[in-house]
């Protein structure tokens, strides 16, 4: 088929290209969705009316919608699918599969809105310089290909299944995860036992960008940092800090690459990272949400991440009363409780 002069224009408008999604089918998020779907009733158990509707002559689709009879995968799947879209997947993706069925995370009213003020970008740059220097003096060994990186994470987010967080109640969930050094396997706890992930899983973004350049500019470029894509690159860099143990040189480069991203600002004063004081640095999204990485004030090591609203914002949607999310409302707080290199999944450092 001959291509047309407008094809390239249309192509340029694609939000995402299939090439960018390579490997997504193997991610835990996508695996979870497949697993969820295969627990649905096999077709011979369908009610007759559904079967009749489904039998529309073999034409693709049909205007059918799985009714409430079918358990439509809920937030877990949403997180899963959406998490899969970005190069970064919030840890919750795996967490869903790991929580024993029926286990409810404890709920708490959570922090009341607090007043947040941001410092200058120059100050953030200064902090990142120090973090890079501190990283250079750490003696860390990156994991070997057959070793595993263990992480334990704790996530505080809305107890409600979806939507912007307007305030409490919050719930906190914790999970442990092992990622193999080569990034090709992962394991999590399921029903109290470490369970290996799918063979083709590329759960670790670190593996995708390997080898990580030690030149900050080259690193930023490799994670896609360019005008219009800085937020994504920032998130990827933060994920690299979160998920893996890096050599001193690489970790320093990650901090320096973050420094190259325009608009990173520090939170004035200390941030509460689940009881530990932390330095907060972040990018402001849409002028109202500060997406932060939290660092240890002594060692400048990664402590966690937080998303917090820095400006009140009112939302209106059709057929629903408008509502306001107040400035200082915590949207998400994720803390890395532990990280270490071990020899096999199930082991803790």
């Amino acid at each position, binding site marked *: 088929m001959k291509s*047309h002069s407008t094809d390239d224009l*249309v192509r340029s408008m694609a939000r995402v290209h299939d090439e960018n999604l390579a490997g*997504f*089918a193997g991610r835990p998020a996508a695996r979870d969705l497949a697993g*969820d779907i295969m627990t649905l009733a096999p077709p011979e158990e369908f009610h007759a009316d559904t079967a009749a509707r489904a039998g529309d002559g073999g034409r693709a689709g049909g*205007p059918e919608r799985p009714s409430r009879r079918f358990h439509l995968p809920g937030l877990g799947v949403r997180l899963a699918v959406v998490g899969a*879209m970005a190069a970064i997947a919030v840890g919750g993706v795996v967490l869903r599969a790991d929580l024993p069925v029926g286990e409810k995370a404890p709920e708490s009213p959570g922090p009341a809105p607090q007043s947040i003020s941001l410092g200058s970008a120059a100050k953030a740059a200064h902090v990142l310089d120090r973090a890079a220097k501190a990283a250079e003096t750490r003696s860390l060994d990156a994991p070997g290909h057959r070793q595993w990186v263990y992480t334990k994470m704790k996530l505080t987010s809305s107890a409600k299944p979806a*939507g912007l967080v307007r305030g409490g109640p919050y719930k906190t969930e914790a999970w442990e995860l092992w990622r193999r050094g080569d990034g090709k396997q992962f394991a999590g706890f399921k029903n109290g036992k470490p369970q290996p992930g799918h063979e083709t899983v590329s759960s670790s973004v670190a593996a995708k960008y390997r080898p990580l350049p030690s030149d900050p500019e080259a690193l930023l470029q490799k994670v896609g940092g360019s005008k219009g894509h800085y937020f994504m690159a920032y998130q990827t860099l933060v994920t690299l800090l979160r998920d893996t143990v890096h050599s001193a040189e690489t970790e320093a480069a990650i901090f320096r690459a973050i420094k190259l991203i325009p608009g990173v600002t520090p939170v004035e004063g200390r941030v509460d990272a689940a009881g530990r004081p932390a330095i907060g640095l972040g990018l402001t999204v849409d002028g109202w949400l500060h997406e932060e990485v939290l660092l240890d004030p002594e060692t400048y090591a990664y402590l966690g991440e937080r998303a917090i609203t820095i400006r009140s914002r009112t939302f209106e949607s059709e057929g629903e009363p408008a509502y306001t999310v107040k400035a200082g409302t915590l949207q998400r707080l994720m803390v890395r409780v532990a990280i270490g290199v071990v020899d096999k999944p199930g082991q803790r450092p």
Partner: protein
Amino acid sequence: MRDPTIGAAMGDRREARFEALYAATYEPILGYVLRRCPSPDDAADVVAETFTIAWRRLDDIPPGDTARLWLYGVARRVLANHWRGEAQRRRRTTSLRHDLRDEIAAVAADPVEASAIAEAFRDLSDDDRELLGLVAWEGLDHAAVAAVLGCSAGAARVRLHRARKRFSRALRSARSESMAMGPHVPSANGAP
């Protein structure tokens, strides 16, 4: 009564088939939905529903790469239905989770969204946009477009020809307009 072991073996085979289909088509379907669905919650729902239908109708799905086309067709209908009815109500009650939306916004950063080209594209009919998209985004030829839309290859050819003409015309008039108003600077979004 059926032998339960036969039933189990059939279940395994069914799962294996679905697994293979899923592995082969998840990424193109995710891409298809993401390109047409600006909201992360909706995109997630549409992907989940598409594969739920695939699981239920596994026996109807043609073999080989035609399966992907079949699934585009399913996703297309799920998307169309999604804007109406139940999904709409669901969307109202669960407003977007900010981080998810931001993730999408980040992955989908589109510097030409506000340009004259995007505007001309948006002004086309749904059918025209879908035809142009299937060719430019999914890389389909006439026969494949026909398989997705459920028409003959000949009809697909004619409809595509017309859609391209309408788009070209819209672009020309957008260009002359923007020239009259001075140079148009595409607004970059996504960059904080």
